[in-house]
């Protein structure tokens, strides 16, 4: 119901453009360091593991290929979404939960403002716009991390690494890599807002809602990625 109302509000006046921009800044710019770090280190770890495994078959030069496919299709979207869920889903739950227990949500309704339109829809739109962007950045930084390992540990040449990385990707990988974060964004934002708006039990309830938001959003991300991957695997 919350999802239906929040999505329906996208076309309904009033539009809170300034709130969307503020949330884009908080979710997008604010989460950039954690997304970059996650991408970079997952790229490094993957290159180290894959380089060693591929080395046993004399295929070390294909490290970039494996890193890029796994990052773009799966690890980039999932790890970035998990980081954003940890940072923003819980943040939304605690912010809205605090507003709930201090009657600020009631005050908003009493002042004639729809809290879903004012609070939920801007967060949903901002997450849907920023999570794919963050995922793309994390993917590129991860590939760069893979290159650092490839160059320093496995002595791969830049041209060799980046060519195999680039050529390994197909359009379906890119579509999958962008569709997943877009769909995850709804789980991240709506779970966070739902938990926050339904907070009860004072400050203790806020803490509980925060934890529940992060856990529930993470579970949804795993379920959704399994479903989307199944659809893409079946169709190709």
């Amino acid at each position, binding site marked *: 119901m919350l999802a239906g109302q929040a999505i329906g509000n996208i076309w309904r*006046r*009033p*539009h*809170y453009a300034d709130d969307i921009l503020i949330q884009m800044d908080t979710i997008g710019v604010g989460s950039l360091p954690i997304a970059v770090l996650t991408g970079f280190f997952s790229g490094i770890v993957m290159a180290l593991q894959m380089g060693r495994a591929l080395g046993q078959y004399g295929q070390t030069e294909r490290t970039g290929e494996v890193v890029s496919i796994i990052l773009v299709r799966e690890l980039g979207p999932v790890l970035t979404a998990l980081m954003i869920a940890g940072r923003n889903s819980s943040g939304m739950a605690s912010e809205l939960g*605090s*507003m709930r227990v*201090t*009657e*600020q949500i*009631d*005050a*908003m*309704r*009493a*002042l*004639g*403002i*729809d809290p879903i339109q004012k609070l939920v829809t801007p967060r949903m739109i901002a997450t849907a716009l920023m999570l794919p962007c963050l995922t793309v950045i994390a993917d590129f930084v991860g590939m760069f991390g893979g290159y650092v390992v490839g160059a320093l540990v496995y002595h791969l040449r830049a041209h060799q690494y980046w060519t195999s990385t680039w050529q390994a990707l197909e359009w379906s990988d890119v579509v999958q890599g962008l569709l997943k974060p877009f769909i995850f964004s709804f789980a991240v934002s709506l779970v966070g807002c739902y938990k926050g708006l339904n907070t009860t039990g004072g400050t203790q309830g806020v803490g509980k809602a925060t934890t529940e938001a992060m856990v529930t959003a993470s579970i949804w991300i795993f379920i959704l990625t399994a479903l989307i991957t199944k659809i893409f695997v079946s169709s190709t």
Partner: protein
Amino acid sequence: MPATQSENRTETQSMLRFESVSVRFDEFEALKDVSFDLKQGETRIVMGAAGSGKTVLLKTAIGLDCVSAGKVVLFDQEIQSLRERDLFDVRQRVGVLFQEGALFDSMNVERNVAYPLLTRRDAKGGAKAPKIDMADTHKRIQEALDFVELGNTLKLMPPELSGGMRRRAAIARAVVAKPPLLLYDSPTAGLDPITAHTIMALIIKERDVDNTTALVVTYRYQDGNLVANFRYNPEDGQLVADENAAAKTIFMVLKEGQLVFEGVQEKLESSSDEYVKKFVKRD
């Protein structure tokens, strides 16, 4: 000041009416068959022990809590049959002071007080609505804050205010759009006696200056006593005794969700009900 005939006529208009209202949360019945009629120009003092349903009654009055039986009629509209979106228009004619003030933490005092004026345009269709006169808005914000004697706190954030100041800023937000009906939820709860007196003086001042109708939820008899016996004197800004105020002040006592008393102060003080007597004491 003698009231004109037209004033007398409008003063009998019903602003808020409860008709056998019950409110249930799962297994718990917070309000049971409550009926009353708040007339224009009247102030109703709702008293009762903690958990007796005072706040639920106030929230039900503007549709924040849903009725499970009965009717709530606000400004001649049955609000339980309205959708949330339609309720927003009705609620904009009501000023509400929540228990802890409920100021928005992310906004400074000026923006908090401006909120009812700015959001009025949003609710009426955003860009299609008439432009807001910002000079007039600033003037009204300043007037509202001057009214509660917080004229120099515009840029302060709510956490920077004391409990009493937060409550006063919330009163400014409640009255800035000049609503004809005001609902106050425990306006003096948790405040020291001097600050509590200041808050009640502001409520009386608002009643007398703008001739507003009010529902005041409180557990303190002293609050009701002030409303029923004093008026605001604009000449010196102080409260002065007024024997006419009692007739327009109706006391209501809630016990476990039921309305067990309704009447003027004299009747309240002479009540033989043991529960009601607990709330009555002279200063």
